[in-house]
């Protein structure tokens, strides 16, 4: 389509009118989240290789996250720390707005920056624990987030998928064997059937909660793509179970009073508590079924 099609004005006023009566087009209440589905690869076939892969869907929004690890040398200015890099793939698959060609759209930049702040800058993964030998060898953990289909609110699904994958992932054991002939030491990476792989050390689990608001300060949790088109602004909170606010991003949209903003934050705390428990139960369920320990 040459130019993006405007949202029909009658739909805009219909959604607004419905919201004033507390109803949304998909039957949800304004502050009700869509159904969350967390799926790990089939434990039988992929027992160990399936670690660190998860598919999260929030209504029609579907995200796949995958973690991989690699031994590299540390950064010169930070010899004691391992590396964590996040790459997010948002292609046209995820929605027409993210058309592949041409430079990344502004929306994409905001999304990747938010994921970066929520997962990496919040020090969720303990990077010092990734260090094998200071200054020589450290683990480089790579988190890939692929957005498979988008019906709004990619941030929450993306962040949840990323954190679940990191919690689910296990890296192999490694040991340094000094060669007697003075050549460089070789790094023995034990295959997973010899030594059980080790989970990453995760300080806390920050999860994102996104609200959209429309004229008249109507607040919506987990907006669909049509609702975000109609909304005048969105607000994203990243919180962890310890009630700590890791990232807050409210730019533009309806100005909110301090108390209104606090109401949204406390609301966010409950939503994150719910999502965390759903994540934990999914992880436990998978752990029970997946044989990882070799003995």
């Amino acid at each position, binding site marked *: 389509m040459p*130019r993006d099609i405007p949202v029909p004005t009658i739909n805009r006023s219909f959604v607004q009118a419905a919201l004033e009566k507390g109803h949304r087009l998909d039957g949800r209440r304004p502050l009700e989240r869509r159904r969350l589905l967390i799926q790990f690869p089939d434990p039988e076939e992929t027992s160990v290789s399936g670690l660190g892969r998860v598919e999260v869907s929030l209504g029609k929004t579907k995200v796949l996250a995958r973690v991989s690890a690699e031994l590299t040398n540390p950064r010169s200015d930070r010899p004691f720390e391992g590396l964590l890099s996040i790459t997010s793939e948002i292609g046209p698959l995820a929605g027409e707005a993210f058309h592949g060609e041409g*430079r990344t759209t*502004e929306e994409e*930049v*905001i999304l*990747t*920056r938010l994921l970066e*702040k929520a997962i990496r*800058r*919040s020090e969720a993964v303990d990077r010092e624990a990734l260090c094998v030998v200071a200054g020589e060898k450290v683990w480089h953990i790579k988190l890939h987030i692929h957005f498979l289909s988008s019906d709004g609110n990619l941030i929450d699904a993306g962040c949840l998928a990323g954190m679940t994958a990191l919690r689910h992932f296990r890296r192999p054991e490694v040991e340094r064997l000094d060669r007697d002939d003075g050549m460089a030491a070789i790094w023995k990476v034990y295959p997973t059937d010899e030594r059980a792989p080790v989970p990453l050390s995760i300080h806390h689990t920050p999860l994102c909660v996104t609200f959209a608001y429309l004229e008249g300060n109507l607040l919506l949790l987990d907006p669909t793509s049509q609702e975000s088109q109609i909304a*005048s*602004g969105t607000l994203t909170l990243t*919180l962890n179970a310890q*009630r*700590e*606010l*890791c*990232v*807050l*991003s*409210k*730019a*533009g*949209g*309806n*100005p*909110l*009073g*301090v108390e209104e*903003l*606090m109401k949204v*934050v*406390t609301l966010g*705390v409950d939503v994150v508590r719910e999502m965390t428990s759903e994540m934990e139960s999914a992880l436990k369920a998978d752990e029970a079924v997946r044989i990882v320990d070799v003995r």
Partner: protein
Amino acid sequence: MASSSRVEILNEGGLRVDGRRPYELRSVSMTFSPQAHADGSATMQQGLTTVTVSVFGPREPRSRANAIHDRANLVVEVGVAGWSQPGVGQRNRGDKRLTEVGATIRQTFEPVIMSHLYPRSEISIYVQVLGSDGGILPTAINATTLALIDAGVAMTDYITSLSVGLHLTQPLLDLSSPEESDIPYLVVASLPGTGKVTLATLETRIHVDRFEEMLAVGVEGCKILKAEMEGEVKKRTGTMVERMKLNALPDRAGGMKDSDRDILMT
């Protein structure tokens, strides 16, 4: 993080690294219309952080594609001068962080600028960071407000912005860069008229219970800063109006009837 970081954020006397008290703002200086051929421009200096903003518009959009039929299209571009950050050579073009700051500024000003008055036209805002000692985003927002006022773009209110840090339990206002890199902080921008928050961004961890107090302090600080800015704007507008009254040419008040004009033309 160990609280006894190498530099004492707050010493026993309650003074900060640069000698200010917790709620004391850095010294502010503003200049209007530094760029002659921009429709409106302003330079805002808070402490050593200096940002200059030029506003072009509302004008004919560069490409017909982004002309919107019922309101003005806001374009914000942010550039950082190479010397502003010590040791970091800047390439402004594809830098993600600058795109994000640009998007944040655009979203912050979109609800305040009365863009429905300028349909099918474009307002371009060019932000250039000349010196950075912490609080780039807040200073950029304050400078943009002044530049828009200087350009005569209709706005419902000022937007003033400040950074608010937290040292243990003591909120600190208007952080300089050593403070910014050591303690968690929040950037808040508000409409002083209603005291409502239009922007709140946070990148470092803060406990929810401390958050409300920091927000309140930030909004309060924004009001003080607005009074400062308003004083300067009015002083300048006053001098310009004085000049406008020169050589006996009456203002073109809206209601002037045609007959008045003939009498004047001696």
